[in-house]
């Protein structure tokens, strides 16, 4: 049952992610990225992280990507040259090689790690009783209160910084 959901979502994520870096039109890139975010949101639901899933949609798809689209349209960027016609072949080759190696290195240890995963205190039942959102909220305002407040400061700084940078 879970595989039935996971495989399509994972496939969608991988395909749209690939499209992000392959498509030549930035607007399509952005839309593909929105697709990736949706797929990830679905996977989060599968992982019983409903709150994160919705926030993923609201923040990433609803706000961040709209901002991206806004800028792309504002700057009216042209299409890029296709990858295979770009100059600087050696760097491209090194890059692709490095990326393939990176994938191997990230994937190979997975098998050995997952065997060693210790099972923590159960939250599955807790989530059924109290709800994911409440759990997140409770943690956020108790244990992680200081980071939470710092985050708000970071956001404020970012707002001010963006205004200072972007004003003419």
């Amino acid at each position, binding site marked *: 049952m879970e595989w039935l959901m996971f495989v399509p979502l994972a496939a969608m994520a991988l395909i749209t992610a690939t499209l992000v870096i392959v498509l030549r039109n930035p607007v399509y890139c952005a839309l593909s990225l929105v697709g990736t975010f949706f797929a990830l949101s679905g996977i989060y639901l599968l992982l019983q992280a409903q709150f994160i899933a919705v926030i993923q949609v609201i923040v990433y798809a609803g706000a961040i990507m709209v901002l991206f689209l806004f800028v792309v349209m504002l700057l009216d960027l042209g299409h890029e040259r296709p990858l295979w016609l770009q100059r600087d072949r050696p*760097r491209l080759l*090194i*890059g692709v090689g*490095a*990326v393939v*190696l*990176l994938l191997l*290195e*990230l994937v*190979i*240890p997975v098998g050995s790690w997952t065997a060693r995963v210790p099972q923590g205190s159960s939250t599955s039942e807790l989530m059924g009783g109290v709800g994911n959102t409440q759990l997140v909220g409770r943690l956020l305002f108790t244990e992680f209160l200081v980071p939470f407040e710092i985050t708000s400061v970071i956001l404020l700084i970012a707002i001010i910084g963006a205004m200072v940078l972007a004003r003419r």
Partner: protein
Amino acid sequence: MIWLIPVIPLAGSLVVGLIGRRMPRMLVAVIACGAATCSLMLSAMSFARLLLLPVEGRQLRASLGSWIASGDFSVSFGFLFDPLSAIMALVVCGVGLLIHIYSIGYMTEDRDYPRFFALLNLFLAEMLILVLADNYLLLFVGWEGVGLCSYLLIGFWFERPAAASAGTKAFLVNRIGDGAIVVGLIWMILLFGSLDFRSVLMDAPTVLAYGSVTASILTLLLFIGATGKSAQLPLYVWLPDAMEGPTPVSALIHAATMVTAGVYLIARSAPLFQLAPLSLDIVAWIGGLTALYAASIALVQTDIKRIIAYSTISQLGYMFLGLGVGAYAAGVFHLMTHAFFKALLFLSAGSVIHALAGEQDMRRMGGLRKYLRVTAWSFLVGALANAGIVPFAGFWSKDEILAAAYASGHWPLWAIGCLTALGTGLYMFRLYFLTFEGRSRLDAHTLGHIHEAPWSMRLPLVLLALGSATVGFVGVPPGSGRLQQFLGQVFPVSAHEVAIEPSVEAVLAVTALAMAIGGIVVAYRYYLVDPHRPETLAARYPTLYRTLFHKYWIDELYDAAVVRPTVNAARTLSEVFDARMVDGTVNGVAALVNRIGSLLRRLQTGQVPAYVLSIVVGAVVLLGYLAFSG
């Protein structure tokens, strides 16, 4: 509550030090004195609480949390208020407060008024940390803190080269002792795995064998530190020079409180010293010799503050003598009485100096009693107490030390003590007679300006005089007075302590008293009745006189043996090693970096993708190592 005792003066110091310059002077004085008052009241309240507790459990503790925690080893910011700390805290706060008040009048002309009070408060805080700490490391914090304050206050008038160099001298000489303490503390951690008084002193008998070399060396390291801070042979040289500081500083730091830190350290570590009879003997002998030695120098000096300074060294010697023969309570008792009468002497001397607009040479004084009545009377009380005349404070405590020395079988030390008592009576009253009695040797101009000190200076004098006269009675009868009983639970029962026949004790007391009175009589005959006789005497024994006058040429000896070689070596290093090796290396490194930089500059394309690529390649290598190495 007890943690507030040091924290309040610390806060006062911060306030006065940071914003004192923008405050009216009155407010500065109120804040500083208020902080001292608060500490005194808190100490008194804690003392009262202590008295209400049953005798065995008389201690209060407060922990402000952990300071260092590393594996099994941990040190906390903890304070301990037991009878020993209580006596120390009360003395420090009480004398400290009086000297704060005195300073209001004494420093009133000074431009750096707020700085002075900030430092005074800071000193108070550090001293209280020292005496209230519940572990050696926190004690050492206070120890270093008072050293720093001492340095800053000796050099308070840093425009004067003498003051600046005196401060430096004090700091450097103390450093030798401090170094020994650090070594001792590290060794203590290795031996006990802790610096807490409770665990170190409780474990001492099981960890260290009686009379073992380890115990001796450990205690001697602590004692070396104590000789530095408490100005004992051979590290006493800084204290006379420290008189360059303002007189309240001399009274507070270099007589009543800081210099007794060494005594406190040894008294606190009594269970350790108890295991090292050799160290105890060394302590006793160093103390006794210092007492005699300093008293002999004091006989011929002419600067009134210096005489009192040498007297301080001498009295500290008594205290160490007492500790060394196992009479810890007697040592602490003498510490307490000494704090009163020595502060009194210094403040009276300060009052004289104040009145004479900075004159310190007593050859140009005389007959001042007519002009400075309060000062003269209080000085006389102080001198009597210092000389050990019954019934003033000094008599009781000194008598107890000498009795303990005799009782423990160290009769040579007892003899030295008695000889010192003779010297003490002599120099103290030489000082008194030359300053306050006889004919005036002042010039007319100074005479016109002479005036008694303001109330803020007179009040502490009177209070301290009262204290000097009466405080000795807390230790009466000798050996089993209220103070000794109060302190009794802190100190181990001394191996030396032998019950002494009352009749023998009476004989001993009368002997010491007779010596002191003899000194006074000699002083009277030589300096008041026939002022020319000392000169003929000096002319008859020129070598002895000059040796004493030049303080046995110890300063010169140190200068030739230590200071000058060090300076020369430093100069050589600075000219050869610094210029060639260090500068050469630095310049060479800079040149190398420059050359490498100009090569690496070519890597800096300024293009983000190139940077990203290198980051990724680095990440791949690193991750590869992590992934495949296991």
